[in-house]
């Protein structure tokens, strides 16, 4: 707010704090946020944004629900599950509009199609939706899901695949783990869930808790408009945005490779907005489709009202 | 040599009048309408087998327990509390291991609010008489058993009460050290003249030391204690141990206690 007119100090004091927890460590999918941060868009909206990384894959959803953070980036099916548990989370924007999550396996293994996963260890990062994904894929390919040994391996996706502790992993991203593994010299192949009966759900959505939304709607709107500005800038200056990202990378925890992130951003651009749908918008149809898929899979026992699950912050 | 004045009708230092006492949670009484008195300046031993109530007698006298019935008099009157009025020398020396000899001696004074400096001065004055000069800055574990008992006695004396109760103070010592401590105690007492009440289960010790012995039998004890007056003159020297009167009394006491003790 440049029109607020107070001196610098009081203006700083007036900045509203926003805690946002990413779905993962900073990578290309977050560059619009870092761009918004770096370009001062958040500050213009009167926000002091604190970007956090999760220790457990489900923390963004859980902590947003518990009110420990204001916003979390998480997965559409998980939001649906949470709603059926009576947990008051609301999706305020869709960030990636179709699955990045693919089932990845080493190229030199003799896995050729999803049903080959029978009798093998498939690791997943503790995010529950991986179960119906793998189930849908294996069954769609005529296999027996019962025969698949699904193991919660936390964040150890790459290491368990490389060390051979898991034969395949679900929950690995086509824009990240795949190029990283390739880059590190492990040739991998993958199945796209959408090819095997899984609906094209929103891979990443931005969630908050009902209470936060009610009390701080203005803050969340302000956050989103800054984020949109960041996105627009990123679209126009992808190279510079990546540079900004690299300045913010978590070097010791999650070192990034220039080539990988470039490739990643390329893949993402096509998934963050489409011809018909602008960045961040959500459609009732998408939510309903995903809900009915989960229902079919007996993954949820109640049908949440699609109207209550999301609020279109983006217009 | 005998500095002590012993009139026939001394004042009473301690008196149990009609005292009845039952341990909490216990079925049967230890004392029933018990009568006993100890005169000022007397050396009285409580002699009896284990479990006969000697320590209980002491706890009542010192104010650690309270009679169910009857009254305990100190110097002829009933004080508000007997705690702090009777000095106590326990069986184990119970010296505080983190305090030096001097600091251990100062304990009762500190508790009564005497300033440290004055307390230290006060205790130091006694060290020599107790054969403890030179070790005042050592810690208890550096001393022999006999020396520790002397510190314990010093601590009881320094407290200033003129009634001292000693609960089997020498039973942990070996026999030679014990002999020597008995003689030393007698000397100290003959000089200072407090009232001493001495608990023991050693017949010889009781006979050699005391003016009078109160015999404790299996509880309950009713009415008056069986009393034995030791007919030896004061001051007693080491050879008093072999006095024929003592040997006779000893024989009598052994037989009597054996009769009562039953199975070993």
């Amino acid at each position, binding site marked *: 707010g440049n029109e607020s007119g107070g001196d610098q100090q009081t203006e700083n004091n007036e900045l509203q704090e926003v805690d946002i927890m990413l779905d993962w460590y900073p990578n290309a999918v977050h560059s619009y946020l870092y761009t918004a941060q770096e370009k001062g868009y958040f500050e213009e909206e009167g926000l002091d944004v604190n970007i956090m990384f999760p220790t457990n894959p489900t923390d963004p*959803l*859980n902590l947003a629900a518990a009110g420990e953070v204001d916003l979390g980036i998480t997965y559409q099916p998980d939001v649906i599950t949470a709603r059926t548990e009576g*947990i008051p989370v609301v999706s305020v924007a869709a960030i990636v509009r179709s699955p990045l999550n693919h089932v990845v396996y080493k190229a030199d293994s003799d896995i050729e199609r999803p049903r080959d996963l029978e009798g093998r260890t498939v*690791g997943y990062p*503790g995010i529950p939706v991986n179960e119906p994904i793998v189930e849908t894929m294996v069954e769609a390919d005529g296999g027996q899901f019962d025969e698949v040994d699904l*193991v*919660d*391996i*936390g964040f150890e996706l790459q290491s368990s695949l490389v060390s051979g*502790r898991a034969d395949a992993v679900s929950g690995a991203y086509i824009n990240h783990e795949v190029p990283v593994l390739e880059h590190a010299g492990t040739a991998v192949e993958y199945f796209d869930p959408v090819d095997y009966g899984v609906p094209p759900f929103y891979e990443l959505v931005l969630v908050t808790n009902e209470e936060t939304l009610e009390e701080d709607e203005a803050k969340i709107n302000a956050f989103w408009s800054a984020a949109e500005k960041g996105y627009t800038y990123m679209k126009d200056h992808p190279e510079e945005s990546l540079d900004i990202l690299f300045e913010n990378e978590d070097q010791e925890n999650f070192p990034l490779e220039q080539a990988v992130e470039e490739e990643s951003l390329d893949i993402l651009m096509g998934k963050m907005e489409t011809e018909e749908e602008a960045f961040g918008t959500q459609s009732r149809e998408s939510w309903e489709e995903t809900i009915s898929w989960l229902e079919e899979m007996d993954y949820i026992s109640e049908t949440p009202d699609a109207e209550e699950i999301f609020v279109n912050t983006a217009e | 040599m005998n500095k002590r004045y012993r009139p026939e009708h001394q004042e009473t230092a301690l008196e149990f009048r009609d005292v009845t006492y039952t341990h909490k949670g216990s079925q049967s009484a230890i004392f029933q309408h018990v009568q006993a008195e100890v005169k000022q300046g007397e050396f009285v031993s409580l002699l009896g087998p284990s479990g006969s109530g000697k320590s209980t007698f002491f706890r009542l006298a010192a104010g650690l327990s309270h009679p169910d019935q009857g009254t305990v008099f100190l110097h002829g009157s009933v004080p508000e509390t007997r705690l702090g009025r009777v000095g106590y020398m326990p069986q184990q020396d119970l010296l505080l291991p983190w305090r030096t000899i001097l600091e251990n001696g100062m304990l009762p004074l500190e508790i009564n609010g005497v300033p440290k400096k004055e307390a230290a001065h006060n205790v130091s004055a006694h060290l020599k008489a107790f054969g403890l000069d030179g070790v005042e800055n050592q810690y208890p574990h550096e001393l022999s058993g006999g020396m520790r008992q002397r510190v314990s006695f010093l601590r009881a004396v320094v407290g200033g009460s003129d009634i001292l109760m000693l609960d089997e103070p020498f039973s942990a010592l070996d026999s030679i050290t014990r002999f020597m401590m008995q003689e030393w105690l007698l000397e100290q007492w003959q000089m200072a003249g407090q009232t001493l009440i001495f608990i023991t289960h050693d017949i010889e010790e009781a006979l050699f030391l005391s003016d009078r012995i109160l015999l404790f039998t299996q509880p309950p004890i009713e009415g008056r204690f069986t009393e034995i007056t030791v007919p030896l003159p004061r001051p007693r020297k080491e050879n008093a141990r072999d006095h024929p009167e003592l040997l006779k009394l000893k024989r009598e006491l052994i037989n009597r206690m054996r009769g009562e003790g039953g199975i070993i």
Partner: protein
Amino acid sequence: MNRWKSAGTSYAGAALLAAAFFIIWEAGARWYDTPYILPAPSAVLQRLWELADILFLVHLPATLLVIVTGLAVSIVCGVGIAVLMSRSRAVEKSVFPLLITSQTIPIIALAPIFVLWFGYSMWSKVAVTVLITFFPITVGAFDGLRAASKDMEDLLRTMGAGSWQIFRKVQVPMALPSFYSGLKVAVTLSVIGAAIGEWLGADAGLGYFSRRMMTQMDAAGVFAPIVLLSLLGIGLFLGVKAIEYATTKRGGRRS
């Protein structure tokens, strides 16, 4: 470790306090009314009932297998080392300081790497359980073996006893109470060890299930397997007590 005993006197006050705790928790949870953060005890019990099938038939056996295997390994190795140490001063002098030092090192922090070594098999969890139960078992057995006084051993030697006879007739019976004390500590720790092991990567087990319920924001579901774990811990504890009762003769228990 006599404190285990002294707990057995009068439970009235304790029961009251525990009841008060649960009542306040229930009331607080109802008042706060966000069951995904703080479930009421009644909700936890209800969830336990609903989940009984899967908990009892799938996850409890998985955890139990880990615990029993881990304890077995710890007992075999721990008692073995304790015996070696008690029989040779040289072994004792070299091994015991290392054992002690190892306790000041947070080896449990190494647990995540077990997954690399043993994979997601049972053995990574067994390794954590062994790590956590090994020390009390070894020290309990060793202290016990040492408890047989030099005097007693000398007494038997004057009777012409060889070292095997001394071991069997004095050291072992003398060691049992202390060994069981160590084992009681170990069984309660073993439950924790198995749960921690399951956090690191698993597809079954009560610790895994509890954590999985976390991912689904089902707090009552988080607590339910923990209630079972607690019961398991208490059950193991009582089991050891029963074995102790059966294997130590009456005179051995001092009053």
